[in-house]
């Protein structure tokens, strides 16, 4: 009876596997996103070293600065799992603190990216300067757009939590947002190594 009451209160749909359909669908989406980012990374790798005019990657990429922004994004992933833990425990305070942390750290990462792009443009690297500029801006720009989407998503969840509309019954919503956020993080792990460190 208790289970039936809980199910009646739970508005999630389940597949025949017993798994929530939203989560199954979202993992399939993440699988397809792997191919999307792989195509952009492949393009960068294929054109690597083919620019006939500068600026070249080794002249312009700022490793210390990007290391800090990478660390910021990794820590935002930590904040995300702690936010999910807060929701699952029904703690509004923990949820607000850690979702706020994700928003601040995600916005911080975007701030680093805006600074980097602005600096590169002043150094003469634009989307049309050379193949390095084209492939670099398209790859990191799409990643930044994903982070921006994630920050907006986190802000909506924070507002829901602030209004008391994010309860343990809604933890799947936060879990799926978390999957998106962590995916954006692992894409950056690959970009940081392949584009910034392996020159």
């Amino acid at each position, binding site marked *: 009876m208790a*289970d*039936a009451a*809980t*199910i009646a209160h739970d508005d999630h749909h*389940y597949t025949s*596997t*017993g*798994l*929530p359909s939203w*989560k*199954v669908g979202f*993992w*399939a989406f*993440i*699988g*397809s*996103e*792997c*191919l999307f*980012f*792989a*195509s952009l*990374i*492949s393009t960068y*790798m*294929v*054109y*690597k070293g*083919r620019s006939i005019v500068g600026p070249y990657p080794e002249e312009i990429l700022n*490793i*210390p600065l990007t*290391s800090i922004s*990478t*660390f910021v994004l*990794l*820590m935002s*992933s*930590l904040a*995300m*799992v*702690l936010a*999910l*833990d807060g929701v*699952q425990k029904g703690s509004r305070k923990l949820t607000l603190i850690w979702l706020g942390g994700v928003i601040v750290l995600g916005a911080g990462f975007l701030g680093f990216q805006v600074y980097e792009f602005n600096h590169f443009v002043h150094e003469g690297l634009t989307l049309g300067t050379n193949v390095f500029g084209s492939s670099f801006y398209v790859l990191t720009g799409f990643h930044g757009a994903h982070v921006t989407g994630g920050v907006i998503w986190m802000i909506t969840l924070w507002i829901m939590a602030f209004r008391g509309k994010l309860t343990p019954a809604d*933890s799947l919503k936060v*879990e799926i947002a*978390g*999957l998106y956020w*962590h*995916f954006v*993080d*692992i894409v950056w*792990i*690959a970009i*940081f*190594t*392949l584009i910034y*460190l*392996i020159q």
Partner: protein
Amino acid sequence: MSAEATIMNEHEHHGSHASPGFYWAIGAVLGVITAVEVAIFYIPALSGVLVPLLLVLSAAKFTLVVMFFMHLKFDSKIFSGLFLAGLVLATFMTVALIILFQVLPQYKV
């Protein structure tokens, strides 16, 4: 056991994850690995093995986030299958394109 009860058991089973302390430990390891990556980038003596070292460290960070932050370690294998299908295909595509356009001389761009 009713279908509803089975669903709830599945849901409860997959919903059980690690403790906050464990997540903090994973976060610390990720931070340390990033610091090591940057440090070895500036060590000239390691330039010969820099690429494989960075790839291994990056793979370690990737795996930690996927297994523990994305909960694939604790979740249903169906989710792992959905993710790995895309990841394996993406890896094959990247390697194939690099071999085709960077290694084979007749196709070099």
